């Protein structure tokens, strides 16, 4: 058996052990369904927030201090403009109150009404309306101003013919620049989201071997580089299982999307086409995982306790978010020096190149980028293994090159 083949076999043995040890445990189910738990909490929180928001909207009123004729014109205008708003953007209902002698004072008093929330009050005449609003309710005041304008036009036009538009939905297939940008962002965010969840898992894997003392058995039988790569591949297998599970569910879920949303998604066409984009997305997810994972594995291998590993989670998250920010900037500004930097810097390269696939149709840069990224995976694994061998197994020379050089410099005559 050739040394390379033996090393590959040993790598797969380590990967298999780690995969089985991770997947065939009850804890894995918790990990697998973590997004569901997270989404459930998100949904519950969102429903609560929506309920609170709806409750406060129901109790809010925009008050009109107008005579009956002007108030009726404003209501007509409200009926025309209100459908332009949806959800939380919808303005509060109108409430007409008979104007008193001092409408200025009446308006200010209305804002302090304790029975209902009054964000804004408008008093006539409509040709020169005066609007007051409570702090933070400027949108309500603007809406009242728009209603007044529309109502004045309505009153002036009388029964004259008004424009009535015919609105028709057409399904388009041509990709748009906006669609490319959206697919670039989707690619960057998708890979970031997946690696954020999954690559951090490898940080503590070497600690298991150190605590169990298995590392001595492994180190005697297998090159440490194979141990590192095997652990990385084992955990990557876990990540693929996770992605496949949720990918299948999400793919099935798209069948139930509303027609408008599905049509909108068809506009999101990456520059390289769907087929290549899917392949490149998978390839860049793999390299992103391997790159970040190899760095985290190498750093985590130096930690000997769970406390040290936990302390590493913050810098790890910061690194990931920084790479996401850099790649997002690259995706939104293709062809700039920021984009080039993000595409070349090893840790952000997979994210940025996935965005590049959405923005540019050329395929050859991806072959170069993947080779470049895999080279860095090899570098990170080699460096991580050497640091581990030197620091943990104490295999390093007591007199390394840098020390010898330093000593020589110190003893040189001045």
């Amino acid at each position, binding site marked *: 058996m050739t040394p390379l083949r033996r090393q590959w076999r040993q790598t797969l043995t380590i990967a298999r052990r780690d995969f089985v040890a991770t997947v065939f445990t009850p804890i894995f189910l918790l990990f697998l369904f973590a997004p569901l738990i997270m989404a459930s909490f998100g949904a519950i929180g969102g429903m609560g927030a929506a309920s609170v928001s709806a409750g406060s909207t129901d109790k809010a009123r925009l008050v009109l201090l107008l005579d009956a004729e002007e108030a009726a014109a404003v209501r007509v205008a409200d009926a025309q403009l209100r459908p332009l708003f949806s959800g939380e953007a919808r303005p509060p209902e109108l409430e007409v109150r008979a104007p008193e002698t001092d409408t200025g004072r009446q308006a200010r008093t209305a804002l302090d009404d304790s029975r209902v929330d009054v964000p804004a009050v408008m008093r006539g005449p409509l040709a020169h309306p005066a609007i007051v609003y409570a702090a933070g309710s400027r949108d309500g005041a603007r809406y009242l101003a728009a209603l007044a304008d529309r109502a004045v036009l309505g009153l002036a036009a009388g029964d004259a013919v008004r424009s009535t538009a015919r609105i028709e939905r057409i399904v388009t297939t041509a990709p748009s620049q906006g669609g490319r940008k959206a697919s670039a962002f989707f690619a960057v965010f998708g890979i970031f989201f997946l690696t954020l969840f999954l690559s951090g898992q490898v940080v503590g894997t070497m600690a298991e071997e150190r605590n169990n003392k*298995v*590392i001595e058995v492994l180190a*005697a039988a297998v*090159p440490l580089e194979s141990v590192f790569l095997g652990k990385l591949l084992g955990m990557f297998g876990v990540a693929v299982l996770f992605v496949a599970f949720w990918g299948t569910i999400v793919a099935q879920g798209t069948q139930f999307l509303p027609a408008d949303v599905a049509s909108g998604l068809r506009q999101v066409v990456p520059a390289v086409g769907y087929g290549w984009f899917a392949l490149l997305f998978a390839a860049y997810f793999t390299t992103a995982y391997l790159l970040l994972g190899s760095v985290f594995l190498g750093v985590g291998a130096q930690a000997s306790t769970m406390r040290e590993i936990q302390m590493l989670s913050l810098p790890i998250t910061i690194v990931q978010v920084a790479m996401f920010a850099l790649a997002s900037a690259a995706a939104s500004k293709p062809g700039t020096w920021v984009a080039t930097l993000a595409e070349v810097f090893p840790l952000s390269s997979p994210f940025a190149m996935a965005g590049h696939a959405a923005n540019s149709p050329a395929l050859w840069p991806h072959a170069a980028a993947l080779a470049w990224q895999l080279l860095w995976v090899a570098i990170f694994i080699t460096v991580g293994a050497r640091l581990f061998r030197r620091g943990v197994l104490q*295999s390093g*020379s007591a007199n390394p090159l840098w020390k010898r050089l330093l000593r020589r410099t110190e003893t040189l005559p001045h």
Partner: protein
Amino acid sequence: MTNAADAITAEGLVKRFGDRRVVDGVDLIVPQGAIYGVLGPNGAGKTTTLRMLLGIIEPDAGARTLLGRAHPRDASDEVGYLPEERGLYPAMKAKEAIAFMGALRGLDWRTGRARAVEMLEAAGLGHAVDEKIRKLSKGMAQLVQLLGSVVHQPRLIVLDEPFSGLDPVNQERLERLILAERDRGATILFSTHVMAHAQRLCDRLAIIARGRRRFEGTVDEARGLLPQQVHYVPHHGGTGLSALLPPDARESGDGWRFTLPGEGIEQLLTRLIAAGHGISGLSIERPGLHEAFVRVVEQADAEAGGAR
């Protein structure tokens, strides 16, 4: 002198940790098919030497070959190793743990599992085949690890303090296993500081103290390092007896112990009988490996003290 039939050769191995020379120029030659013991007190450098031989750590100086290969890693599929600090995955079943260790050394999983079951049953652990390691006693787990280190039927087996932590029954089992592996044709190198095992098992041995090899040879040669001891029981004691005995004579129980004189025992006995002390009992004893080991280590300590 080394030859191609040697399982292990090491020449001038040196390892420093910081400013401390833990191993200071160790030479070893382990012939194929031998049971070879590396003896030494705690901290002598035995484990570090074994780790260098196996390629777990690199020596700072010196060279070694393992089964004829210049780099130990190239022979890893033909080597079995039981480290001093035992380590198994607690969540693995005993059978899987053995098969995993075999798989690391090139044995396919299916064969590894089948052999694991056979070996566990032969070792009296048939009931533990599907037990998780965390549920086994320390001794049983140690036995599982030992079986894992030989499941791939290696040509060379390296055992670091294999008897430590085992009860007498399991020590006996381990001795039988080592002899069985030697009969299969394997070379066995093990370290220990318990002389009884070494005396019973080793064809050859090396004594390491303070990072250096102080002795290399057979058990008999090691025992020959010390002169034979005489145990003499006089028929009549009394004054003047001690003056007739050699200067190192010391009372021991009902008699006296002293080093066998260089000219033999006959002249001394003649003098004792003539002085009326008579002979109630007399035996000439060869010192054990234990005594030889203690002497070698004490000499090493004395040398180190003198050097300081």
